[in-house]
């Protein structure tokens, strides 16, 4: 199929981008790395989009150490996240996640902001945001607002970003000295979207467990978190399997996903405790 775009404009800067969105009558579409959007357009799953290309907007890329937090620009590419020393030191979960995302060509173009705005429940970064307790920074005609990760993902491919807004950055808390961050997943082939994936963050305030590919959004497994805080791994596994309602598709049934979620939690706990390679 051939894409059927409504139009294309390259934004010079952030306010220009927001202006272009406002001008496009609800048909505006931010184009970042294009690794999800262009594929959708080429299947005519999305037609008539007025593309607002933000890929050359300066100031939206890179990682800044803010003391307590890291600020990651929305246009920071997957490949940069994977290699960035600040990320590796203070948010290793994100660096680890990159090795599970797609293939080199896609990681060279795909952006973290695009992945979060796209909000694929099978994608790694959205679940990482939940596990890390990240904050998302969004710019619109009225300036900047921020949203907690837990409020950001609303439904399948839906976030709290409005038509005329742009995700500009993410802040994540820097890991504590003895904090452990682990990502476990099962995929059919390397680089495929996971059948199930699980992020586990163990910090002094407690455990955070998020899952991908088990619901229409990435989710926090709160009951399992409570059990794990009490040191009850079996209880956490049981709670986890009880609190998720995963979908069935051609790759795996809901039963398989539910079962594997428990396996991944055990593996993540073992890895977090260091007795699993």
């Amino acid at each position, binding site marked *: 199929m051939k894409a059927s775009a409504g139009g294309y404009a390259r934004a010079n800067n952030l306010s220009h981008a927001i202006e272009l969105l406002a001008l496009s009558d609800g048909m505006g579409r931010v184009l970042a790395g294009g690794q999800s959007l262009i594929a959708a357009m080429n299947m005519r799953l999305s037609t008539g989009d007025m593309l607002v290309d933000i890929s050359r907007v300066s100031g939206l890329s890179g990682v800044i150490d803010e003391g307590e937090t890291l600020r990651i620009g929305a246009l920071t590419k997957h490949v940069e996240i994977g290699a960035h020393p600040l990320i590796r030191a203070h948010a290793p979960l994100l660096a680890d996640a990159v090795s599970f995302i797609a293939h080199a060509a896609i990681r060279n173009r795909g952006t973290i902001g695009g992945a979060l705005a796209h909000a694929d429940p099978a994608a790694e970064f959205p679940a990482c945001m939940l596990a890390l307790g990240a904050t998302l920074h969004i710019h619109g005609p009225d300036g900047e607002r921020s949203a907690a990760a837990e409020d950001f993902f609303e439904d399948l491919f839906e976030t709290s970003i409005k038509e005329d807004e742009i995700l500009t950055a993410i802040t994540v808390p820097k890991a504590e000295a003895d904090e452990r961050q682990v990502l476990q997943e*099962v995929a*059919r082939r390397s680089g*495929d*979207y996971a059948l199930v994936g699980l992020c586990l963050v163990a910090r002094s305030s407690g455990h955070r467990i998020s899952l991908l590919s088990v619901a229409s959004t990435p989710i926090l497994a709160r009951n399992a978190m409570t059990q794990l805080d009490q040191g009850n791994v079996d209880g956490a596994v049981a709670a986890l399997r009880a609190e998720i309602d995963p979908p069935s598709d*051609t790759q795996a049934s809901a039963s398989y996903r539910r079962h*594997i979620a428990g396996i991944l939690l055990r593996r993540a706990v073992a890895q977090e405790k260091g007795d699993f390679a």
Partner: protein
Amino acid sequence: MTVQFGNPDRPNSYIGKTVPRPNAGRLVEGRGKYVDDITLPRMVHVAFVRSPFAHAKILSIDTEDAKSVKGVLRIFTGADLAKVCTPWVAVLEHLKGLKSPPEHPMAMDRSCWVGEPVVAVVATSRAAAEDGAALVDVDYEPLPVVADMMTALDASTPVLHPEMGDNLAFQRLHEEGDVDGVFATAHKVVSAHFKTGRHTGVTLEPRSILVDWNPAEGQMTAYHATQAPHMVQTVLATHLDVPESRVRVICGDVGGSYGIKVHVYPDEVATAAISKIMARPVKFIADRLESFTTDIHARDHEIEAKIAVDANGKILAFDVDDWTAIGAYSVYPRTSAIEGNQVVNLCGGPYDFANYRAKTTVVFQNKTPTCQYRAVGHPIAVAITEGLVDMAAAEMGMDPVEIRRRNMYADDAYPVTSPANMRFEGLSHHQSMDKLMGLMDYDALRADQAEARARGVHRGIGIASFIELTNPSPFMYGIGGARISAQDGCTVRMDPDGSIVAMSGVTEQGQGTEAMLSQIVAEGVGVLPSNVRVITGDTQVTPYGGGTWASRGAGIGGEAALRSARALRDSILEVAAAMLQSDQASLDIRDGHVVDIETGAERMPLEELGRIVYFRGDTLPKGLPRELVQTRHYITSEYPFAFTNGVQASYLEVDIETGVVTLLKHWCVEDCGRIINPQLVDEQIRGGIVQGLGGALFEEIHYDDEGQLLNGSMADYLVPMAGEMPDMVVGHVETPTKESELGAKGAGEAGTAGAPAAVMNAINDALRPLGAQVTQMPFTPERILRALGAIED
């Protein structure tokens, strides 16, 4: 004079060596020319409106809105095209009872699968054609859908084609010996239920055709990504009423075929019909979704089978009940009954046993038609056979290699005729197995497996012996009435400067045919391979031939090339002998020079001979033949097929908590007769194995109960990718066929034939201590966990 294959130091010894591929540089430089790279003056594009229903009556078609789209030129319905194109019926007389209704290039009043073309929109660009197609309004009345294979023949299931009487397309029962008697009294009987997943070929370049009808010349030119240009020529000529001599099919670079591009596709014939109506070049390039819904599918089989063995592990009998569903039409002109027929022909293939029953039942359903895909029927037959042999060995506590050694035909037993009535000229099962054992260090691997198991790591070794059908004679299609050539030809010409042009009826799909031909012709004439220009894929230029299918390019096309090259050599030497006043027998051609055959002393460059023949023929003796163009054809006649053999092994690890299989290593030892180019053969084996591994672990087309295809994208249909592929070790045994001087059999399908069975056996070897077994491909993580009983609901 014959070629001294045994002597690697013979002059011009290119056969048997890895020579550079003449087309590799061009492709690497991005100068390949695929159909979509061709643009002709006044060219238009067609996009098809395809049925969204698996079965529906077409009540009305409204094209008004579509016509108003900028760039849309014309819109055609099935009825419009039926005026210039006759329908086809895909049956073969030797497949007794095979039936299929007439099929038109586009649906007439009823659509029978999701993806069947219903309306064609022609526009100045593909994008405009798609815009138009989106606005065509077809009013459908959905009809009951036949989706399930095993209930297709039940009385309660609607009959898809009422005029056919029932949903049975074809059935064949073959019986040899006293099967029931043996099963009743055998020492051990093991049975199993197998399923192979419906999958497809997934070529990198999708199906592509550009047809240019020139009414001024009465000539139709089709630029086509195809494996069989002459077959397509015949088909277009027959159904569009043009003499064959006025249909030219040109097949340039092709981005992979695997059997997908050897069939007649309704949308491609429609493109030709539209060109004939519009008198303009019309291009159709399938997109990826169209590829999944309209490229032929294959391997959708369900099998109940059993084996009987005696107390020594000697195989007494196989009994196989195979079912397959082929979609709504048998595919033209090879038919969709061949795959099931092959299962009947090939089960038990490597083994010397006496009692055999196999039945295949081929039914219609409302899904994409199935037809021949690389290694047609082989992966299914090998999985059944090798799966059962392993299960029998396990039952008897016998090593899987040992049971095979006790049953494979002895290497000196040939010629033999199998219980399936297949005739084997010469195979090397035992030598191949011995070689495999050495390559894989079987005992060390068993030790590693035991050591891993002690650590709670579950590894398995799987062995799969196989036979492969290659070099087909007219017994495959011709005797059934199909106009498909089993013969192939080659024309070899010397140009004035002594360089050589070879035109062959076999085709280049990316597998290296042209390299293979160049080295045969180089050796046959006595020139450097770089001095041989090979031309394939043009029906107006090359001798008539079959093209690429059933692993025939080297064995048939190569032999024709060798014979034509030798003939050219002889005619060159005849002229040379006259010019040099020598005895022809005392001369030879080496590296482009006429030389003294004993001493190798140079007597004359070919360039000089060419100058004299072409420009100073007056100086040669009157009446001296000077035919520097020679054509030879070759067809096998003693055996219907040249069977090859081999054995594969897989070593893998099963994560019993997640069900994920990790392939650790793969081996294949095969015997394709004379190896012309070791690298090309190894690449064929490796690529074939990859496709076999895809079938074993990843590839499966999913439909719902309404016949909707659920995974029509590369994200959802999983092809094997490099990351999951193991290292592969390829070894060879060479038993040349005596039918030809070249002695080459085919190698294109061996890898695909054996790999799925090797993986299945390895998984089951890993799972056996846990009491689990899998027999349904692909072996997904979920299927493995379910076999282990890990998932409750």
